[in-house]
Structure formats: C-alpha cells, structure tokens
C-alpha cells in the first residue's frame, strides 16, 4: 500500500511538472502539448474506435507472430541442444544472428512478401525467434539430468518424455528467454508497423507525425508503454511467481 502511495505521488508530480511546463508556454503547444491535450487525444482515439482497432490489430499480430516463434524456437532449440554437430554449427550462427537488429529484416521481408501481413509477421518472428531458441537450448542444458533419467525409468519416451518431463523440467530456465522473446517481438512489431502503414499502433504513431499531431503521438506512445508493461508485468510476472511457488524456487 505504501508502494502504491509513493507511485501515485510520483506520477502526479510528473504530470504536475509537465502541466506546469506546458502552462509556461516555453515551447509552442503543437510541439509540447499539455497533459489534458494528450488526455483529449486518448479520449478521441478511443471514441472514434481507431485506438481500439489499432490495439486489436497489433495484439493479433503479436499473438500470431509470437506463438509462431515459440513453436519454431522450441523445435530449433531442442534440435540444437540435442546434437553436438548442430550446436557447433547452427548454434553459432544463431548467436551471431542475434546481433542483427530485427528492423534490418524489414527490407528483406518487403522484397520477399511485399507490403503484406506476412512481411510483418516475418519481422516479428525473426525478432523473437532467436531469443526463444537460445532460451530453449540453455534451458535444456541447465535442466538437471536426473529428470530425464527418472522419466525414462518410469516408462516415458519420445514425445511424451519431452512433453511431460523435459519441457516442464526446463520451464523455469526457459521462461526468462520467453519473456525476452516477447519484448523483442513487441519492439519489432511496432517498428515494422511504423514502416508498413497498415493499421496497428505503429501506424497510428506515424499518422500522428504526418498530421503534426503531437498529442496523438504522445497518446499512442503511452498506449504502447502501458500495453507492453501489462503483458510483461502482469502475465509474465504472474507466471514466474506461480512457477517459483510450485517448484519451490526462491524468487531471484
């Protein structure tokens, strides 16, 4: 409760200073809009449904792109972690590819797929695939070997061994990578949307720029922050806490 009070105080002070600076009119309002201007833009955006549509479209892309990268990343990570040859070859490539900012995939995606939904999903996929793959690989390695042996000993093999033993056993080690993958996917998606101009939050942001509407720009930025924070802070944090409780791990 004390923490919440501090936070409320902090954000009110922040908005207060912002309002004060806007009131002083040091910068013209079209460059430095007051908080109520941004509030208005948020209200209008939700009232004419453009923000709702933007959020829905962006989240849909996010879900599809991220799910794809989780499934593919798990397969890749498993392959890399279970073969010495793949680890020394493909593993190295994956790590080096991770140094490539995902926005660099945009030209390639546009040439391959055109300005389509597929191109956006491709960029999201490439943005998060690598961190999921590497997380899966590390998870398999860090997971105590005993679980695999115990599983085989009790009659599990093949896919069932993977699904009911290896996957849950490495989950605490994978989760961090999954979280990172989500954060990368989120960044890639907004970047891609800013270039592709096809609905979505990124496009709303660019539209604000094109119309020189600073209030809209700030409003969308705030939306992106809140959405990103909600998924990260609420969904992943909760999963992490649940997992720690269940597995008896002390919170890091």
């Amino acid at each position, binding site marked *: 409760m004390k923490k919440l009070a501090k936070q409320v105080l902090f954000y009110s002070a922040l908005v207060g200073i912002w309002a004060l600076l806007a009131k002083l009119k040091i910068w013209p309002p079209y460059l430095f809009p007051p908080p109520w201007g941004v509030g208005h833009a948020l209200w209008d955006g939700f009232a004419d449904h453009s923000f709702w549509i933007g959020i829905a479209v962006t989240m849909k892309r996010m879900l599809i792109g991220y799910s794809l990268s989780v499934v593919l990343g798990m397969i890749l990570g498993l392959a890399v972690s279970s073969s010495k040859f793949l680890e020394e070859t493909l593993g190295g490539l994956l790590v080096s590819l991770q140094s490539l900012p995902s926005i660099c995939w945009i030209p390639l995606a546009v040439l391959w797929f055109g300005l389509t939904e597929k191109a956006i999903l491709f960029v999201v996929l490439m943005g998060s695939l690598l961190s999921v793959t590497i997380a899966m690989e590390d998870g398999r390695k860090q997971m105590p070997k005993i679980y695999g042996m*115990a599983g085989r000993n009790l009659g599990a093999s093949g896919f069932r061994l993977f699904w009911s033993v290896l996957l849950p056993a490495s989950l605490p080690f994978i989760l961090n990578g999954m979280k990172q993958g989500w954060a990368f996917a989120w960044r890639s998606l907004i970047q891609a949307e800013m270039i592709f101009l096809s609905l979505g939050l990124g496009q709303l942001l660019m539209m604000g720029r094109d119309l020189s509407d600073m209030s809209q720009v700030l409003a969308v930025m705030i939306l992106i922050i809140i959405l990103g924070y909600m998924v990260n802070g609420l969904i992943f944090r909760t999963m992490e806490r649940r997992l720690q409780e*269940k597995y008896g791990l002390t919170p890091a």
Partner: protein
Amino acid sequence: MSTSPQNAYSNPVPVPSNGVRANVFHGKPVASVAAFPIRPLAEVVVPKVTLDGISLSYKTTSGERLLALDNISLEVKPGEFLCIVGPSGCGKSTLLHLIAGLNPQTSGKVLVDGSPVSGPGTDRILIFQELGLFPWLTVGGNVEFGMKMKNIPKAEREEKIQYYLRLVHLSKFRNSYIHQLSGGMRQRVALARALATEPDVLLMDEPFAALDAQTRDLLHDELERLWSETGRTIIFVTHNVLEAVRLGDRVALLTFRPGRVKQEFSVSLPRPRHMEQTDVARTARDILDCLRDEINKSLEAEYADEKTR
C-alpha cells in the same frame, strides 16, 4: 521421545490384517496366484535378475579407457532382498543404471526372467539417490506419473494413488508439492512412485544416505514391511554395511575400481532386524573386515586425485 521407531507412525496401515494384504491390491480381490506365483517344488526357479559377465568401460576426459565394472555375475531370486555394498567409486550406482536399462553395458548381459534387457522398462524401477521427484507435479501427480505412461485407465490410477499413498503414510500430502516435504517424506514419495508402477524389481540407489539416523531407521522398518507385503525383488545399493545387513537376505561386496564381486554373504538373521542388534553388528563386522582393503584403496585414490590437482 519415548516412542520406539516401529510404532512412531500412528496411522494404521490401510490393509486388512488377515495376512493376505497383497491380494486386495486395488480394492478388488485378486487371486493369490497372480500376486505370488507359487511354483511346484520340483521346478527350477528362474532367477528374477541375472547379471551375466557385465563389464563397463568408458573414456575419461584425458582420453584413457577406464574399466568401471569388470565381469560382474550375480543372480537374484524372485522376492529376494539383495544388498550391494562397496566403497565409493566402485561403480555400484552405475550397475543399477545398467539393470534399469538407462545406460548400455560394454559387454555382458542383464537378464530379467531369463530374457535380456534392452532399455528402460517399468518392470524394473530405479529409485535414484537424488530421487528425481518432479517438482512441477504434486505428490499425487508424481505417484500417478508412471501409471500414466503405462496408459492405465484413470479410475484405476486413482485407486492406486490412494492405495500407495496410504501405504507410505502420505495420504494427507497428496496435493502438496515436493519442496514442501521433509527429506524422509520425499523418500517415501519416491518409494510410492516406484511401487505404483508395480515393478517386479525395485532398484534402490543409496536412498537413505542423506537422511538423519532416526528417519532412516523408520524407513528401514517401512521398507521391510513393504517388501514383505508386496513380494517385490529388491536390489539395494549402499556404502553402509550395517544397513546392508539390516535389510538384505544377501550382501554382495564389490571391489574398488574396477568393480568386481569380491564376495557374497548370505544373511539369515531373523526379521525384523535392527541396526543396533549385536548379531547384526557382528555380521557387519565380518563383512567390513573384508571391505576394509577396498575402502583404503578408494581413499588412497581420492587423496592421489587431490594431490595431482
């Protein structure tokens, strides 16, 4: 603490005390023939487990070949309690892994009921030293796991979970997670999990090594009771000779690196036994005398390792 170890558990054992406990396994009466195959006396008893000239060697990181197990041959009768004793590093855990089919041996054969083993099977369940209980499952879920893998129907699994949890006095903890339990309780979960798949052979790898003496004594009593009630064959590995004499019908002594069977001792002391009994201690002393050279070799090797490091 005035209670003696064997009645410190106040929960009654949930089986009728008419002497046919094993025959009411899953709530349904089963013909006793199914539980205890009674063979005519004339018939030769096929050993439950036969180790036929087992050897295992592996490459160390420095590239040399190390012989871990050397030509081990042992026969274990159905329903027998065999203890394998040896100094640390004699490969006794490795031997259990081979019997469990988790690793292949370099040469020789493992036979169960006369047919060779080629991989893990639920007829032989190993209880690992580290237990390997699944932290993402509840106690009940852990006990259920092996049965699920065997595709046993839900209703039957349910009955067996209840039965085996009662057997190890953990019914109340069915929905707890592993990390919420004490060491001795975890040990009993591992036992229940292994028993629930109803293996013919139970392989136990120093299961009580990490426990305090009191808990261990209690679990000895429990294990002896479960063994006599279920008629399983048990191969129990330990470095503790006293424990081996307390539990085993027979004690096989392994040498240090490479592991060979040095000698076998049959223990015919009446049951139930206790570690404090003088005859148990005396038998243990005889075995220990025989083991002493091996322990010294093991210690010397350890010190040598330390010097070269």
